[in-house]
């Protein structure tokens, strides 16, 4: 809900308080006092580990309760879910709750990762406890304030729906108590509700941002408008890392409304040409009129066909070892009939969120203000500060509502923010919105990497895998980034093998290794990361083994899963039960496809009903079972799975691949890189949540890994063919 220009100075208060008076023209957008606190470096673990309640909750005089959400909202529903958690413990009147996306500040860092971010499906998992504590503390302070005023024991007070009730019929509204409450000491510990006491957590709660998104009033980053703001676009090199030899900007500058044309650094030590103009269309026209002679002589020219060949070759040799247990001798003695050798290929994938990337910055010399729909506020703030020669605390960073992300807005090198900062620096004083066109987005890199897998399995006499050798080839996401120390060990980037290395299948003779080639294409995590390809391989290979053993695919998985994989067993069982009515009565030309997978600590099993229409898979129905611990908002969980599987089907689209030829990306918009439309998505999806009292785990990414293998498993049953090369071009 951010999006208006705010001056942090307007909110300097002499003391911290829960009570904030709206003073902006926009009416009510408030920025935490904690931003102005000097010496509040944005590095490392958050200093404010106690998460002061008044940074998160503000009760307005009219009773509105404004809750700061410490993460970007980009569709996943966190802007509703975290306030639900806090409001429940606080006993707030939900109808008065307003959620805002917190700007970048120390107090809003993820408690586990130590930076302000959203990703890894960790929002609820990491902040559930945190927001419960916050809500409970605010409630305790309100009660303490009331008890003080009434001179009654705290124990004789109770709360309900933004009112404190005391003995003798006394009551006081939260907004009347807020000032006094903020003078109370923040309790060190609080008692949290028992699950039986939840009023909101676990119930279906509709999103807070729906109406604004349905009537055009809610502003995304791209919608921002500031007085005097200019629009910038950048002509990026056609190959990553290249620079112009010569720029002829005469025609560009002659377009009425163009302000300036100049070069700026872009990703991989390249140089781009920035155009600044009064409007988007002007900037685009001007950029189109630039005549640039690019020097592509000293950058690598990646080519998908060549990479494919190279990756296939590499996959035939062992790489850096990720997992080795048992021995592979069974592979040596297996007959041809009992030995499967499967080679898989996966292309580069663009995230292509609906809202193209954009960032707005105003640089005033000794401070800057930024508006961006960022998944990585801490990191982006640091990068912008670096480019502008400022300290991070001199950069006021507003988090805007974002039109999708899927990982694209969490970039370790902050390349888009750096472009915007370089432009803002050039324009010192004038606010400028950098806009990436859809073409920039499709061609701009930061893709899910290309991968090859080679799997050799020896099937035992019982039909189960007796030995499993697995080689993965693909660029490393983490090497060369600040995250390398977390996820790279012995030359293995764990994000490339997650989902296979940690498989719950009982593979006692298992060897998994990986090659990480260096390619001149920037790569990035794409919703569910390594699971996007490992789950496909694991679940299609297991399905193939089940077929060979003439076993039911669910029963086979049950047998192959380790007995202690309790959650996976549970979802398999629940999926089997809920899909039985239709799975056992499929019409002619339909087949069922099964897959199950754990990712980000959430376990998912699915069954799909597929037929072939117009040479494409037609998905009539998906039945999902999920174990995600406590489902804070079952409506969100259902939404994530119903929609997330449609996103996952991006991998199967006939034109769902980014390819390069002689260094050039071949696609440039949704006509060449085609995402799923309604006809490509399942007609219905029913979602069943395993009842659980365990800590919540994520639902953002877990829908993605299971859907492609499930659909392909159904197709294999219909056609008898194996599909190991994505995207699915022909059936």
């Amino acid at each position, binding site marked *: 809900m951010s999006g208006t220009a705010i001056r942090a100075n307007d909110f300097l208060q002499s003391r911290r308080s829960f009570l904030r008076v709206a003073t902006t023209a926009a009416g009510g957008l408030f920025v935490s006092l904690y931003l102005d606190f000097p010496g509040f470096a944005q590095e490392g673990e958050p200093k404010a580990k106690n998460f002061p309640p008044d940074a998160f909750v503000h009760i307005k005089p009219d009773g509105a309760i404004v809750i700061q959400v410490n993460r970007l909202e980009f569709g996943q529903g966190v802007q509703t879910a975290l306030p639900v958690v806090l409001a429940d413990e606080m006993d707030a009147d939900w109808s008065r709750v307003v959620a805002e996306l917190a700007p970048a500040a120390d107090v809003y860092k993820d408690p586990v990762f130590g930076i302000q971010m959203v990703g890894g499906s960790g929002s609820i998992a990491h902040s559930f406890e945190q927001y419960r504590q916050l809500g409970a503390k605010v409630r305790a302070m309100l009660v303490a304030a009331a008890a003080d005023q009434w001179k009654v024991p705290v124990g004789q007070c109770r709360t309900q729906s933004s009112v404190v009730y005391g003995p003798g019929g006394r009551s006081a509204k939260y907004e009347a108590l807020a000032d006094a409450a903020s003078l109370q000491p923040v309790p060190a510990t609080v008692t949290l509700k028992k699950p039986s006491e939840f009023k909101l957590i676990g119930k279906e709660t509709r999103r807070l941002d729906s109406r604004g998104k349905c009537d055009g009033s809610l502003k995304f980053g791209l919608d921002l408008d500031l007085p005097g703001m200019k629009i910038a676009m950048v002509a990026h090199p056609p190959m990553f890392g290249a620079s112009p030899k010569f720029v002829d900007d005469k025609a560009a500058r002659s377009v009425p409304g163009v302000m300036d044309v100049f070069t700026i650094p872009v990703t991989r030590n390249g140089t781009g040409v920035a155009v600044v103009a009064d409007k988007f269309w002007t900037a685009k026209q001007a950029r*189109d009129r630039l005549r640039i002679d690019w020097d592509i002589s000293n950058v690598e020219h990646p080519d998908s066909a060549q990479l494919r060949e190279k990756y296939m070759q590499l996959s035939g040799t062992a790489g850096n070892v990720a997992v080795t247990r048992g021995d592979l001798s069974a592979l040596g003695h297996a007959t041809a009939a009992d030995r499967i050798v499967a080679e898989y290929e996966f292309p580069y994938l663009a995230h292509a969120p609906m809202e193209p990337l954009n960032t707005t910055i105003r640089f005033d010399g000794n401070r800057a203000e930024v508006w961006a729909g960022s998944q990585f506020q801490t990191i982006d703030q640091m990068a912008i500060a670096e480019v502008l020669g400022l300290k991070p605390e001199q950069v006021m960073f507003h988090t805007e509502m974002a039109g999708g992300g899927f990982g694209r807005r969490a970039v370790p090198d902050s390349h888009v923010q750096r472009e915007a900062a370089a432009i803002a620096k050039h324009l010192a004083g004038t606010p400028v919105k950098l806009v990436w066109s859809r073409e920039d987005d499709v061609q701009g890199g930061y893709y899910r990497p290309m991968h090859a897998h080679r799997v050799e399995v020896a099937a035992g006499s019982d039909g189960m895998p007796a030995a499993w050798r697995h080689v993965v080839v693909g660029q490393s996401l983490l090497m060369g980034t600040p995250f390398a120390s977390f996820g790279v060990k012995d030359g293995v980037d764990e994000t490339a093998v997650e989902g296979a290395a940690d498989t719950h299948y009982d593979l006692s003779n298992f060897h998994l290794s990986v090659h990480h080639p260096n390619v001149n294409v920037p790569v990035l995590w794409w919703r569910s990361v390594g699971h996007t390809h490992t789950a496909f391989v694991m679940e299609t290979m297991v399905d193939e083994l089940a077929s060979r053993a003439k076993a039911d695919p669910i029963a086979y998985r049950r047998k192959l899963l380790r007995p202690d994989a309790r959650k996976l067993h549970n979802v398999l069982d629940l999926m089997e039960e809920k899909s039985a009515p239709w799975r056992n009565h499929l019409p002619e030309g339909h087949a069922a496809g099964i897959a199950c997978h754990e990712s980000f600590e959430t376990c998912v099993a699915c069954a799909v009903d597929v037929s072939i229409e117009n040479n494409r898979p037609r998905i009539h129905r998906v039945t999902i079972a999920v174990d995600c611990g406590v489902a804070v908002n079952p409506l969100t969980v259902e939404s994530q799975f119903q929609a997330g599987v449609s996103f996952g089907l991006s991998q199967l689209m006939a034109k769902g691949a980014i390819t390069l030829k002689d260094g050039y990306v071949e696609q440039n918009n949704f*006509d060449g890189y085609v995402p799923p*439309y309604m006809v490509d998505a399942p007609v219905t999806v029913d979602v069943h949540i395993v009842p659980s009292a365990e800590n919540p785990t994520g639902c953002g990414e877990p829908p993605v890994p299971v859907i492609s293998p499930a659909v392909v498993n159904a197709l294999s049953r219909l056609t008898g063919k194996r599909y190991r090369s994505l995207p699915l071009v022909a059936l």
Partner: protein
Amino acid sequence: MRSHNTRNRWFSIILALSAWPILVSRAAEPGPDTAPTRDAGLAAWQQVYSVLTHPRCINCHTATNYPQQGDDRHRHTFNVTRGPGGKGVPGLNCATCHQGANADSAGVPGAYNWHLAPLSMKWQDVKDKILSSAQVCQSITDRSKNDNLDGTGILRHHKQEPLVLWAFDPGRRRDGTARSLPPLTHDQFVAATETWVEAGMPCPQNP
């Protein structure tokens, strides 16, 4: 006398040769008393056929529930469909994108009443393979299929119909390049149609 005959013969030959261009262009406008021959009509029909089967025309004369796009005549992107009247469906009409004139700044072609030709006027089969000259000729002259047009009606259609005129002024693509044009100019197309009509709209025999 011999020389006179020789001279006359040469004279006739030269006259004939020099009249050839006149005869060809005359084929476009036969004199009021001389209808073109059947052969001239068939030749004119081949010219008409070459235009009808050019992408600018045939992309909307499909046998399927979708139009085609581009010189490679691929299926129109974005899941657009024919709809009951050949104008698309509510929410995704032809007019959803195609306006009354070319939108060169967006790379989208346009003309008055942009829509698909009816299925009765398909010039390709359901596998998008272009029909033969004989098949198209039969179809185009079949009054139960062609909106009951006689020769005059067909000629008027070729002369005046905005979508036909569009094919000869098809605007620019998104990348700024001009769309390719049919093999004849509009004037030549009309002239060839006229010759064919006046020859009695003969159709080739071999399918």
